[in-house]
């Protein structure tokens, strides 16, 4: 018998990678670097930014974006977009207010009906996407315009106005306000309850993505849906579930809007969907799906919170906020790409 080389030898061409390279190849690195840079920038140029009491305000701004950035990031990792996410928040807030006010119900009934509606909108997006096979960009662009029109039209029909009527004197308002819009003061800092929701959602999102079977499926349906289906991953339910998660978080955001301001402007929310997507992309999510991070998206939201107020505190004209966003988006994606390439080469 002739001798053959043993099969299971270690391939000596492959050396193990250094720890630093492995850390740097994580998707959230770019956003973390950006967050530190922006923090230092505003610490240097904006005096009020250094005031401890303003931490609460900054975190509040970040949390309103972060609550949506988490499910939007998961959806993007799952390979889909949701352009209707911004106006869906307004739809949720409006429906809760209008239903309760028009039928004279306890506001909690409005809150629950609004939850059903918001999750149903998400499910509809997912169902239509899978049913038609159209790209999610088109499907949700459609629902974006539909919801925008419905928000304005229904509100005007119901109230003759462009905003929902105030509901602060209705049954259950006080308890709902406590759940969705309360705040606690610790020392000089006011913490809004949305900050808690944001952190909890981030933790749950990151846990689900990295430590559960569903997270594995989310990566797979975004990375290669055909491959995922072939090995038995329920692609359809995973995607519909992700859209429903966006719907759920839109409801949570909408309820905060409603109980914070007691009324909802029907034209609000347009343009917000891009901010959620940008936060997710800054956090390392690929537009093509299959890669990204929930923690990164939350850091992306934090960058927004800092920038939004930092520009104000620095005394710059807030007109420049959008320009700043665009520059941030480009820089963060370039840094992500660069860091990833360097780390993969090592």
């Amino acid at each position: 018998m002739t001798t053959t080389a043993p099969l299971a030898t270690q391939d000596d061409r492959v050396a193990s990678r250094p720890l630093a390279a492995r850390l740097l190849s994580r998707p959230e690195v770019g956003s973390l670097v950006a967050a530190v840079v922006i923090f230092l920038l505003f610490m240097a140029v904006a005096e009020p930014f250094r005031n401890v009491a303003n931490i609460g305000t900054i975190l509040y701004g970040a949390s309103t974006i972060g609550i949506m950035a988490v499910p939007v990031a998961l959806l993007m990792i799952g390979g889909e977009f949701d352009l209707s996410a911004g106006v869906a928040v307004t739809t949720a807030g409006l429906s809760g207010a209008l239903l309760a006010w028009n039928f004279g119900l306890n506001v909690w009934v409005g809150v629950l009906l609004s939850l059903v509606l918001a999750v149903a909108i998400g499910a509809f997006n997912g169902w239509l996407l899978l049913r038609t096979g159209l790209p999610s960009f088109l499907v949700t662009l459609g629902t974006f315009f539909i919801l925008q029109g419905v928000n304005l039209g229904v509100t005007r029909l119901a109230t003759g106005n462009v905003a929902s009527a105030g509901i602060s004197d209705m049954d259950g308002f006080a308890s709902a306000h406590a759940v969705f819009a309360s705040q606690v003061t610790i020392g000089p800092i006011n913490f809004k309850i949305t900050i808690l929701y944001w952190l909890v959602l981030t933790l749950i999102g990151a846990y689900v993505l990295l430590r559960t079977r569903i997270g594995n499926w989310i990566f797979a349906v975004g990375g290669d849906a055909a491959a995922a289906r072939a090995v038995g991953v329920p692609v359809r339910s995973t995607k519909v579930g992700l859209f429903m998660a966006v719907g759920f978080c839109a409801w949570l955001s909408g309820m905060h809007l409603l109980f914070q301001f007691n009324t909802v402007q029907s034209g609000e929310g347009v343009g917000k969907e891009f901010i959620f997507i940008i936060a997710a992309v800054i956090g390392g999510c690929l537009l093509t799906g299959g890669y990204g991070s929930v923690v990164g998206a939350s850091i992306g939201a934090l960058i927004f919170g800092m920038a939004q107020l930092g520009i104000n505190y620095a005394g710059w004209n807030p007109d420049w906020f959008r320009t700043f966003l665009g520059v941030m988006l480009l820089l963060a994606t370039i840094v992500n790409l660069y860091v990833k390439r360097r780390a993969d080469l090592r």
Partner: protein
Amino acid sequence: MTILELENVGKSYGNVHALRGVSLSVRQGEVTCVLGDNGAGKSTLIKIVSGLHAHTSGSVLLDGQSVHFGSPRDAQSQGIATVYQDLALAPLMSVWRNFFLGNELRKGFLKTLDIAAMKRICASELSKMGVSVPDLDRPVASLSGGQRQCVAIARAIYFGARVIILDEPTAALGVKQSGVVLRYVVKARDAGLGVIFITHNPHHAYLVGNHFVILKLGRVVLDAHRDELTLDRLAAEMAGGDELAELSHELRGVAVPPDTAS
């Protein structure tokens, strides 16, 4: 012992008959080779057996019972595993996540992924195949073609209890890597699995096959046991017999420049 049997199975996509009257049986501990040129209907056949598409006529029998697989998950749960040509691996996911995709191990009350166990099993299954991947956290896209093939086969064998379908596993591989894959085909056969080996390479098929079926334009043109065949006959049948003779005649005519011929 016959595990899986196809009787007069056909599949139409609208007015296109991709597969017509195909009969085939897969026995325990045997390799059934399905050969055919591009467009012969091999892929359609796999899709039916693996549960991606439903057949439109005839019947599929599993242990003598007529079955209709509703989904790949359904087929898998009945013990039919498939290694696709494109391998069904998500490129940006790590090796161990891909290995256990769709069959994740979980533990505890919260059904957390049992990552340590999955990495351990993945490493030992891969080393059995002779693949060494130093970092199972690397994305599958960073592996070589042969390594990816082995990940997909090792996965199918680890989870595929009884029948394993290999869709052109050697098509994109070099000689040495093909040898590794063929050796694994034999291992799977000896372990008592029924193997369906799809290929268009009669040499690879003849090395490991017990039974040979040649498809052409959606029909079975040859169905023979190893004893009834030689490699030359198989290669000739595969290439279309007369057509090959005709082609070689034609090419000979072209190869000879006219002025030297006269």
